[in-house]
């Protein structure tokens, strides 16, 4: 238990970082009703661009911005495959993801791993800060978890505003009923591409933050991102769905979902002292359970009749 408590701040921070990528996925998966597999690649793209830019001497904020832009470009490519080449969204994402593997390696100078020395560069967060805060070497507000909370809050605020605008509403309409959207003069293809770009921009930002946090970018860092993202969305919905109806709160639920996911994983690791090679298996099982819960609920629990709703 002690080892779990020790690991808790790290787990929460990781969860928050991945929560940003999950919010990106929420845009395509929930709002646009698209399954976008680009994310496994664009997550790493974000990390790679960030690390390489910083190593080249760019300011950390410029590096983060460049990472977001690179991610958006990846989304754009998937959108192009999907809308202009008529490739189904899932396949379009897989193609981009595959291609990105080479692109990511190229960005990282053909190395599978590129370190980022925390002492040499001015990062916004690092796993090292966790202990430094704990031992009083750093002020509490430099705790990595707080930094990511701030990022998340700003992102949710911007998205809340954006999806209330004419453009944002037309993206939502595209996902809700594309036939109706076109009948109302909405360019659904454009909106899908835009949504994919925004989504992957956030995914890349998340990757960039993780690379700073762990102090390196690595070619496999995005593997399984889609599963973690879906897990966060679903865990968030199962846990907070009844309470959180407002759009901003729904985004918050996604972020919290990611945190819960990482806490559960950490709990399993600490308590069962499991070989971390089993992590992927455990992740898959956790996601399967959370996916099954709403289904089982509907199936085996008798439904209460809704009142006051006329047909």
């Amino acid at each position: 238990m002690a080892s779990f408590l020790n690991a808790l701040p790290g787990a929460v921070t990781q969860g928050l970082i991945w929560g940003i990528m999950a919010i990106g996925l929420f845009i395509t998966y929930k709002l646009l009703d698209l399954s976008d597999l680009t994310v496994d690649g664009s997550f790493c793209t974000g990390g790679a661009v960030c690390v390489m830019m910083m190593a080249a001497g760019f300011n950390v904020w410029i590096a983060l911005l460049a990472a977001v832009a690179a991610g958006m470009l990846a989304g754009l490519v998937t959108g192009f495959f999907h809308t202009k080449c008529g490739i189904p969204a899932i396949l379009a994402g897989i193609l981009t993801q595959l291609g990105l593997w080479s692109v990511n390696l190229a960005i990282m100078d053909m190395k599978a791993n590129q370190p980022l020395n925390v002492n040499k560069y001015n990062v916004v967060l690092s796993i090292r800060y966790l202990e430094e805060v704990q031992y009083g070497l750093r002020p509490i507000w430099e705790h990595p978890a707080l930094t990511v909370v701030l990022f998340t809050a700003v992102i949710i605020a911007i998205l809340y505003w954006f999806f209330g605008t004419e453009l944002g509403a037309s993206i939502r309409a595209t996902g809700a009923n594309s036939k109706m959207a076109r009948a109302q003069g909405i360019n659904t293809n454009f909106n899908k591409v835009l949504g994919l770009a925004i989504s992957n921009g956030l995914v890349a930002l998340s990757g960039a933050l993780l690379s700073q946090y762990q102090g390196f970018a690595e070619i496999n860092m995005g593997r399984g991102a889609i599963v973690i993202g879906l897990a966060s969305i679903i865990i968030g919905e199962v846990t907070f769905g009844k309470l959180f109806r407002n759009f901003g709160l729904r985004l918050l639920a996604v972020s919290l979902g990611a945190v819960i996911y990482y806490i559960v994983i950490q709990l399993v690791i600490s308590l069962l002292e499991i070989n971390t090679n089993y992590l992927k298996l455990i992740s898959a099982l956790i996601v399967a359970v959370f996916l099954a819960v709403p289904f089982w609920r509907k199936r085996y629990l008798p439904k209460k009749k809704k009142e006051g709703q006329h047909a």
Partner: protein
Amino acid sequence: MLDIQNVFKTFNAGTVNEKVALKGLNLHLNEGDFVTVIGGNGAGKSTMLNCVAGVYPVEEGTISIGGVDVTGMPEHKRAQFIGRVFQDPMMGTAATMQIEENLALAARRGKSRFLRSGITKEEREVYREELKILGLGLEDRMTAKVGLLSGGQRQALTLLMATLQKPQLLLLDEHTAALDPKTAAKVLEVTQKIVEQDHLTTLMITHNMRDAIAYGNRLVMMYDGHVVVDVSGEEKKNLTVEQLLNLFSRASGSDEVNDKLLLA
């Protein structure tokens, strides 16, 4: 207003399922025409509307609206001229969005959408007044998700959305067919009211011949991908269902088609 000239549309061309749905279709609508369209199943009525709206490209012929050639224009661009209501009540609205959000989307038909607010306070007031006209009490449920509404309520809302931004052309594809008779009558009544009030040029497909005779100033009958009967004015007003059936068999040159056109 609407000019359809010699339009051909084939589905699944070059396969065993090849189907020529429109065979040299010609139809001209004057400004303010309210045209009812009848015809048997598969006559090409929906295909005609879909081709006008830009859902499908056509192989041959031209379509123009208000003098603008729209033949090659994508669907979302054509929407600036056209209001549409579909047969399926689920089709015309976004179920997961609020009533007022749906209206706000419709109010921006044909306009560019940027980072302005998706719905303003003043708009809400306008929508409240417009919803009152429907007489369904929707003005008190403006933030309810459309998915909670009944089929009839959704059709009425779709109709309002189609006409909120006055369209040059209103396309109704059996928009009351999925409703119970009472609701259907109500939606038709609202349709009549809006069309008259805004002098909308309208194409209304129906399988109900009595409605086809009762509504509009002109009646068109389709058979096998083109128009076979076209009556208007006094002649249309005085039509009976029986005469209509006779007209149809003469135009299509056979009796068996009578069955195809039986009252819905």
